[in-house]
């Protein structure tokens, strides 16, 4: 086989170049088939590692806001993630609204991060956008960083009272979960 392959295409051997390309094709075809087959076998294995249906099943959580006192926040669980719900003081709201967008790492207005008419409530996914630690700052006694929001103990990222990142290494603002106000004192997350 090797001999034939080596001589194929030589003028004197009696096989023309067309013969060689036919052979190449005959090699490539099963090769391509094998690659597709390997992929077809690999995909179920790879996909089995993705979140399973029970994990995906979207659970929602209702939160009663009455026990939260002004200036502090609580942490609730939703989809295995911590959610911060914080009751902001008038001063904190003003600070969050007055900051120039050009000063922000990921510019976003405070009004885009709260529900209209509920500016005192900020609801965030409490996971640092750097490497996933839970920032401190819900309790007024926690370290809250220079901007009075949250401070991540892992690598020192700082967030303001709107949950926007003000000091790296975190690259993004804290994410907002989907939620809605059921009434003034109750929200539903998810």
């Amino acid at each position, binding site marked *: 086989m090797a001999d034939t392959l080596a001589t194929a295409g030589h003028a004197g051997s009696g096989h023309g170049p067309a013969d060689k390309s036919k052979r190449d094709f005959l090699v490539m075809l099963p090769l391509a088939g094998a690659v597709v087959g390997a992929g077809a076998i690999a995909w179920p294995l*790879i996909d089995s*590692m*993705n*979140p*399973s249906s029970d*994990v995906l099943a979207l659970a929602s959580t209702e939160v009663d806001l009455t026990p939260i006192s002004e200036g502090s926040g609580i*942490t609730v*669980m939703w*989809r*295995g*993630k*911590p959610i911060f719900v914080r009751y902001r003081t008038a001063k904190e709201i003003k600070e969050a609204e007055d900051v120039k967008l050009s000063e922000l790492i990921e510019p976003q207005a405070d009004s885009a991060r709260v529900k209209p008419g509920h500016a005192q409530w900020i609801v965030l996914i409490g*996971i640092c956008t*750097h*490497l*996933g*630690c*839970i*920032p*401190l700052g819900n309790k007024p006694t926690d370290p809250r960083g220079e901007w009075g929001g949250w401070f*991540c*103990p*892992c*690598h*020192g990222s700082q967030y303001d009272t709107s949950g926007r990142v003000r000091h*790296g*290494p*975190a*690259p993004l603002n804290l994410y907002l979960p989907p939620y809605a106000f059921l009434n003034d004192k109750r929200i539903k997350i998810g």
Partner: protein
Amino acid sequence: MAAGLFKSEVKNPVLRWVDTRLPLITMMQKEYGSFPTPRNFNYFWNFGALATVTLMIMIMTGVFLAMNYTPNANMAFSSVQHIMRDVNYGWLIRYVHMNGASMFFIVVYIHIFRGLYYGSYKFPRELLWMLGVVILLLMMATAFMGYVLPWGQMSFWGATVITNLFSAIPVVGQSIVQWLWGGFSVGNPTLNRFFSLHYLLPFLIVGVVFLHVVALHITGSNNPLGIDVKGPQDTLPFHPYYTVKDSVGLCVFLLIWAAFVFFMPNLLGDTINSIPANPLQTPADVVPEWYFLPFYAILRSVPNKVLGVALMFASIGVLFVLPWLDTSPVRSCRFRPIYRILVPLLVVDLFALGYVGAHHPQGFVVLLGRVATAWYFLHFLVFTPLVGWFETPLPLPESIAKPIVRKPHSGGGPIPGGAVAKPMENA
């Protein structure tokens, strides 16, 4: 001699019967008995053998731990307590395994330092070296996933931080992280797959170590002089000379390991990991095990996520290309007046990075971290290529057996090629 049988020199008829069909005895005799080995090894050449023994002990203790461990987020922590308190000698098996990971890294780090100092990564051992770096990466993955299994606070948050490194990958990062977790955060699916992989990877390491040793036996070992073996007068048979030398080192090494196991089993661990994992509370300091600290420091010293992660991976990546970064034809630092200072300085730099990795990133620590990170990359990417160009190596000895240096013909440069020397050793 019948056709199809191996021509064995084994005398014992039973062993001979086997050896003619499967020449294992001949192979062992050739590779580990009479194998010609440079006669001038120092104790740095113990560490490959020490690493091999450590790997075997880790696999053995690991298999027995797995008989009593439960990889479930609700039971993992208590199953480890069960091993420590109820299982006969469970405490011993666990402490040997736990401290064994640290011993493994100490041994391999010294092994790598040996390679750096004596130029073992250079022609013709480049592939041997790269296989070593692959082993290092596999070891890191194995140790990281093993540390998650007891499901303490540091297990959980270490896993969270490290898996999140992959979220730095543009566009697909978040999907990759969820794929790694099997959920929206580190949880039971994560623990299950980490257990499965922690069991698998050491056997892959065994496979790569096998290739590493095959490659070693093609090129032969380097030696403290860094010059090639010229003939039988330069070598000794591996057995009994180096089996004995390795055994001496092994006894000392096992004593040190035992001292940790019996007298200070928790010294190298983090006490926070005796608190069960709590997904709602990040500990005040998330610190990895000591052997990851320098890399963690590199990650943290850049205030940009993607760049920090990229640099951390690059810090291992530079090791892969080191054989091509070093422009000096002389292997051993013994004959390299400048590089022999730079290599120990790199060790100091790594200790500095280790200190930075263990402390809160503020003030002086941040500055030290940045300087040390810069030095690390300067060492490999700038100093190593440059020094190779302008450094004047000391004259190399003629051979291992005759470490006497002939007077250079003129100046202080290396001796020109003599009748026996090949170009490699004195260019």
